[in-house]
């Protein structure tokens, strides 16, 4: 028999942790943005993202994407730790024991509340060793220079790469096959082991389609 009183033993009924109104808090006088646990948040204006792209292109040329990817990996490690701690504390369950449905629900809400756009997860190819993430309304894609001729969300690719590597305890890589900055309807990221994804990096530079790349990966 289910006892309602027993269901209310915990201090809270877990709900919408990443609700933007509850999650993002600030102190205007101190110029601080914090999350609901009191951890600091960083707001980045679009001109700064544009300046990062143009500065990196000027300083490093074609290596700009690689630099952003590595920055994203560093960012992703910290993002994972914060996400894990927050979700584990709030839902009182280790991340690895969460159902995929609950985990994805949290990740999608978190991604949106952080202002990174809408995130969709596609696990159709997971038995072949790949998972796909699709995002829309990316601030990084929106701020990429018009003449940036390859997928521009290298920073997000780095974040996803580090996030999922930490999550599953294996070194994973991420490549981006479609990008809003190139006129695609969404940004598509393929996550898998580096050895398998390295084989198709050249196809991205040649701007081959996502379907062609998936066909090679799944062959």
């Amino acid at each position, binding site marked *: *028999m*289910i*006892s*309602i*009183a027993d*269901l*209310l033993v915990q201090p809270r*009924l*877990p*709900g*919408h942790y990443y*609700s*933007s*109104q*509850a999650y993002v808090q600030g102190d205007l006088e101190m110029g601080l943005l914090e999350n609901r646990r009191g951890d600091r948040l960083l707001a980045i204006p679009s001109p700064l993202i544009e300046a990062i792209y143009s500065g990196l292109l000027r300083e490093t040329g074609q290596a700009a994407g690689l630099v952003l990817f590595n920055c994203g990996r560093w960012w992703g490690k910290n993002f994972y730790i914060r996400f894990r701690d927050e979700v584990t504390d709030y839902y009182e369950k280790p*991340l*690895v*024991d*969460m*159902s*995929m*449905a*609950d*985990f*994805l*629900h949290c990740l*999608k*809400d978190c991604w949106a509340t952080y202002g990174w756009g809408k995130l969709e997860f596609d*696990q*159709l190819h*997971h*038995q072949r*060793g790949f*998972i796909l993430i699709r995002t829309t309304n990316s601030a990084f894609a929106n701020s990429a220079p018009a003449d940036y001729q390859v997928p521009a969300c290298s920073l997000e690719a780095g974040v996803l790469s580090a996030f*999922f590597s930490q*999550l*599953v305890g*294996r070194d*994973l890589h991420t490549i981006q096959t479609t990008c809003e900055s190139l006129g695609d309807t969404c940004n598509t990221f393929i996550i898998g*082991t580096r050895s398998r994804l390295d084989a198709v990096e050249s196809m991205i530079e040649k701007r081959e389609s996502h379907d062609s790349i998936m066909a090679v990966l799944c062959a």
Partner: protein
Amino acid sequence: MKPVIESLFHDAATHYLKPDATVEVSQYMSSLKERTRLYRTIRDQEITWMQPIADDLEQCFPTEQIDRLENSLRNAMLSLRHCAMAMLMDDLAYLEVHFLTWFQESIEIHDTFDLDSHIHSALRQQLSQALNTSQMRLISPFLYEVESRFKPEAIINDDSLLTVAGLF
């Protein structure tokens, strides 16, 4: 908080409230005592109302996993708490931002339409028996808003990947 009350804080320097807005403020203020009383009633009766719903749920869904039943009951209480708070502030937007978007997605991904709609219809029945007409008038818009999200559309999940640990 009720949007017209918020406007008092933001627009006081530019203009006085128009007559229809002052009527709205006045109506809200005069209803506040009753809203507060109703909020206290909901808070104090939560367990009393929900226990028979839980008992009935187990009988109506005897083959359903207990975890799923408990999860839907928790969400129903969460729903009631958010409806009570939104009713106190007379603010549908509060319900939307803090609860409904999340709840609707939760129903879809866990495919709990049957359980959730059953619980909410039982909850509405409990409330209509326990509350008087004017109290029901205060809480009903928020209950309707929650019920409007019950659509039998589940997101198809691949059962081969049940937990995060199953990735790669």
